[in-house]
């Protein structure tokens, strides 16, 4: 790719989604943009970028940004946050909410493994939290990721990353070469396309937000904005999960870490939701 084309992609991703893209990673750029160019019927990435410059077509611009935003994931990624959710957060919220809905949001859900891991956890724990009303929401920047996630179809490689075999047997069926998640679990989740650095005031209010491996993928100035957006969408006694190696400390006053619980944050009591 030509340096000026790479710069255009970097600038586009930063402006639209706050996404940090390293122009030195030629392989990453080409492996993500190649399939977009083919899908959009361009002969090459160069041709696609030329068309973008000429027409500034919104749909194409988003297709490019979304392709750069996607990332690998796994069921029960990092394991510990899910144990914490199952053993501490879920029973506590069930008690506190006492039949009122508990709203959980998987922000930047990618191909759905995170939100489905939560859904399976809730389903498996159901008898221990009688009367609790759980509502699961998942969002992503990418329409294509959302479509794949909603299908609940995974390859044999995908369902073997992080998913214990007993949960596979309980919740999945073989569908030719793929594995299909049971409709009961799929129907627990509501989906929406959301750009996390845009205005989130219409997103709703949540008790638990999983927003992992997004913060560090953003350009510096957008990180505080993301955190403040999430703080506004979180109930005052709610919890935020960040990815391992990600921290809100020093970026924003909106959150404080929960001690002894790596990756877990609570809203700072002094944070004012109304900005």
């Amino acid at each position, binding site marked *: 790719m030509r340096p000026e084309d790479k710069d255009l992609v970097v600038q586009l991703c930063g402006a639209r989604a706050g996404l940090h893209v390293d122009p030195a990673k030629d392989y990453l750029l080409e492996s993500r943009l190649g399939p977009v160019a083919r899908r959009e019927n361009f002969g090459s990435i160069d041709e696609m970028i030329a068309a973008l410059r000429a027409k500034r077509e919104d749909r194409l611009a988003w297709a490019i940004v979304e392709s750069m935003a996607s990332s690998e994931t796994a069921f029960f990624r990092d394991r510990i946050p899910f144990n914490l959710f199952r053993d501490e957060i879920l029973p506590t919220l069930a008690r506190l909410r006492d039949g009122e809905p508990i709203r959980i949001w998987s922000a930047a859900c990618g191909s759905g493994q995170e939100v489905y891991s939560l859904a399976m956890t809730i389903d498996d724990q159901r008898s221990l939290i009688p009367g609790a009303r759980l509502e699961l929401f998942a969002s992503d920047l990418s329409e294509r990721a959302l479509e794949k996630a909603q299908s609940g179809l995974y390859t044999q490689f995908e369902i073997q*990353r992080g998913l*214990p*075999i007993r949960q596979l047997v309980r919740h999945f069926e073989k569908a030719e070469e793929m594995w299909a998640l049971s409709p009961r679990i799929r129907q627990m989740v509501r989906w929406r396309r959301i750009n996390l650095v845009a205005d989130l005031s219409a997103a709703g209010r949540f008790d638990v937000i999983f927003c992992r491996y997004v913060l560090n993928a953003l350009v510096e100035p957008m990180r505080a904005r993301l955190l403040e957006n999430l703080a506004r969408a979180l109930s005052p006694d709610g919890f935020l999960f960040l990815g391992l190696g990600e921290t809100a400390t020093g970026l924003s006053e909106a959150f404080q870490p929960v001690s002894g619980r790596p990756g877990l944050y609570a809203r700072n009591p002094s944070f004012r939701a109304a900005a």
Partner: protein
Amino acid sequence: MKTCLVVDDSRVIRKVARRILEDIGFEIAEASDGMEALAWCRAAMPDAILLDWNMPVMTGIEFLRHLRLEPGGDQPTVVFCTVENDVERIREALDCGADEYIMKPFDGDIIASKFAEVGLA
């Protein structure tokens, strides 16, 4: 160091599995069928067993049934590793005392993830 017995009639698979498991810190022994594996276990019970299903002489599932009746045979963590991918087959393996189950083809990530799942890596 923890030991893992790799049971598969394919020398290539044993070699690939050995390399992956050595990388995550296991000492490896190999057997090419269930009977050989049972002899290994009677001599020295391993911490973990990576077990193929279809093998000559004695299959993986027959081996597992025998193993669980041996003195100390309830100890090893058994991870199936086979092309069998019918849900019924997987249930059968779990009912016979398997702890985890890998469907071939596998890669290093899958083995590491499954062994972590059963607390071995």
